[in-house]
């Protein structure tokens, strides 16, 4: 029982990080119809910004917020300067450009910060060895609880944004039909840029949390989380924010259970494999994911 709970706790916390990153993917997809392959790397470089701000003396929370702002600017900037122009020419081109960004940001982070020893990244939450709470014998660390709460909060905010604000409405309009949206007077350009900006900002936050958990920063920080996030978005449905969240938590818990209860077969090595197989299976049988909407294509 204790072990089960332990796996569930760990899974929920890790899962909320995946969910946060996955939400970024979903926001971009809902807003613009594209998959941002560079979501993880953009998050990573924003985390480096956060670290840099902190190293310059700013308090951690401020640094994280600034990092998110930097993310927003980065995301919006990329959309305006690159994505928009390429999207006019070809859809596949957007994918290629996002791959180029994947390479570019990774390289850039290595170039700017690379020659320093691994950066020490403080956590937003208390993370001394004693900072945990015991529930039915299983240990739940404050750090993990904190991450979950922050992630859920943000998801809630996003949900409010989508459902209750005019801007959210505009985003949905642009996503479903950009032409009509423009005709109605919605500033599509702004909406698109903002979608990417929000997604990048969320990536920055999840990066800060992953970095805080790991305690150090390298340019590989968000590579594996990106895979998990993709799996979550796939499972949940790329156009369903709620779906991405639930899927993220499911995958987080699922992989912990799989690794924990089948150490010989899955263990820690194939933990990622769980996420990958999930992608495979979902796309094979229900490509729209658990909560996504099936696209009806006009022939």
């Amino acid at each position, binding site marked *: 029982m204790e072990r089960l709970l332990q796996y569930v706790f760990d899974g929920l916390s890790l899962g909320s990080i995946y969910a946060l990153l996955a939400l970024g993917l979903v926001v971009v997809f809902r807003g613009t119809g*594209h*998959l941002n*392959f560079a979501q993880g790397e953009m998050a990573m470089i924003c985390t480096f910004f956060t670290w840099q701000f902190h190293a310059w003396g700013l308090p951690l929370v401020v640094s994280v917020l600034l990092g998110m702002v930097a993310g927003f600017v980065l995301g919006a900037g990329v959309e305006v300067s*690159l994505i928009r*122009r*390429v999207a006019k*020419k*070809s*859809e*596949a*081109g957007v*994918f*290629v*450009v996002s*791959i*180029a*960004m*994947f*390479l*570019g940001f*990774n*390289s*850039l982070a*290595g*170039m*700017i910060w*690379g*020659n320093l020893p691994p950066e020490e990244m403080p956590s937003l939450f208390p993370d001394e060895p004693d900072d945990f709470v015991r529930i039915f014998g299983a240990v739940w660390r404050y750090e993990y609880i904190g991450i979950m709460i922050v992630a859920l909060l943000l998801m809630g905010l996003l949900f409010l944004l989508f459902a209750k604000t005019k801007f959210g409405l505009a985003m949905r309009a642009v996503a479903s039909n950009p032409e009509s949206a423009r005709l109605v007077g919605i500033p599509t350009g702004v909406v698109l840029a903002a979608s990417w900006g929000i997604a990048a900002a969320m990536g920055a936050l999840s990066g800060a949390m992953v970095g805080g958990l790991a305690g150090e920063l390298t340019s590989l920080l968000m590579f594996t989380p990106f*895979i998990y996030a*993709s*799996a979550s978005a*796939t499972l949940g449905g*790329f156009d369903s924010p709620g779906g991405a969240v639930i899927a993220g938590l499911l995958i987080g818990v699922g992989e912990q259970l799989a690794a924990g209860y089948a150490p*010989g*077969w899955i*263990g820690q*090595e*194939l933990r*990622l*494999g769980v996420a*990958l*197989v999930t*992608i*495979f299976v979902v*796309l*094979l049988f229900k*490509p729209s994911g658990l909560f996504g909407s099936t696209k009806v294509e006009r*022939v």
Partner: protein
Amino acid sequence: MMKINHGSPQHWALRTLGVALIALIIVWVPTQMSTSRIGQFSDAFVLIIAAMSLNLVLGFTGQISIGHSAFFGIGGYTAAILIKDHGWSPGYTFYAAAALAFVVGCLIALPALRIKGIYLALVTLAVAVLFPTLVKWKKLAWLTDGAKGIDSVRYDELPVWPILGELKGRDGRAVFAYWLAFVLLVVTYLVCRGLVKSRFGRSLVAIRDNETAAAVMGVNLTVTKVLVFGVSAALCALAGVLSTLRTGVITPEGQYVTLLGSIVFLLIMVVGGAGTLWGPIVGGLVYVWLDNTTRGFGSESDGVIGFLFGWSDQSPATLILGLALVIIMFVAPYGLVGLIKRLWVKVVVVVPKPAGTSLPTTGQ
């Protein structure tokens, strides 16, 4: 701008010139250049083969795949295991690797039947990331030696080929690898060309342009997609075998065995020109040249380059490649080959024969 009629003596002269030029370069490299340069060309050929295989699936059929590194790895590992553990002669491993990869490729095509676009990209992403993970899996360590990889995969004695004669030592190995790679490159090119110019090739393009329309016009989507994935995988595996034989080692973190490999193949294809036969060739050569040149950029360069990149201790090679990719997408969306074609047309235009004419046409 010169107008030449198709089939005229001038046209033949032009073609012969082109072929002669290429032949000259091909022969000059292994005979006149240093061993390490020959090696670089061999590596370029390997990449070109892999990019050509991806081109079949992505360029011509429009199916996004970033999973070809898995096929590359399957090829390499098959060869390594057969040579090291079972004493096979390296020559036969090409066939075995291609056959195995063909089967795997067909299997992976099955999800492709139902999904498109980014979803397919995700599935192939999963495949690409899954491959190294599986190789390192403890349960498969008996086969793959886990994270250690397999080393000393090489020809004990280089086979004796006509003209080349007996080859020894590293110079011999380099020359042999070069010619082996070249032969495989030609084979791959011919296979691709044959496929593309046939009815099968036309159905591939039809699928790329509009799948539903293609189906309506009688293209068997299932068979076509499965076959093209299979062939593509087999060709990519050949590149994998070649690479393993050249370096002598294969590990799960190998250069083209991970997701990064798939990305490089994609890069080459896009830069060269997707959907063209010569695109991967041009792209591969440009990539290798760019990679080798930019690797040296750093704190030790002078002038503009030093200014742009000298402040960092890390090589900007990947960044430059990413930038190059973006620039190509804007400036030359049909790749360098597309660009060359556009410019070439300003110099020489080959006027095709009017349809239905059987009379020989006069020159200009």
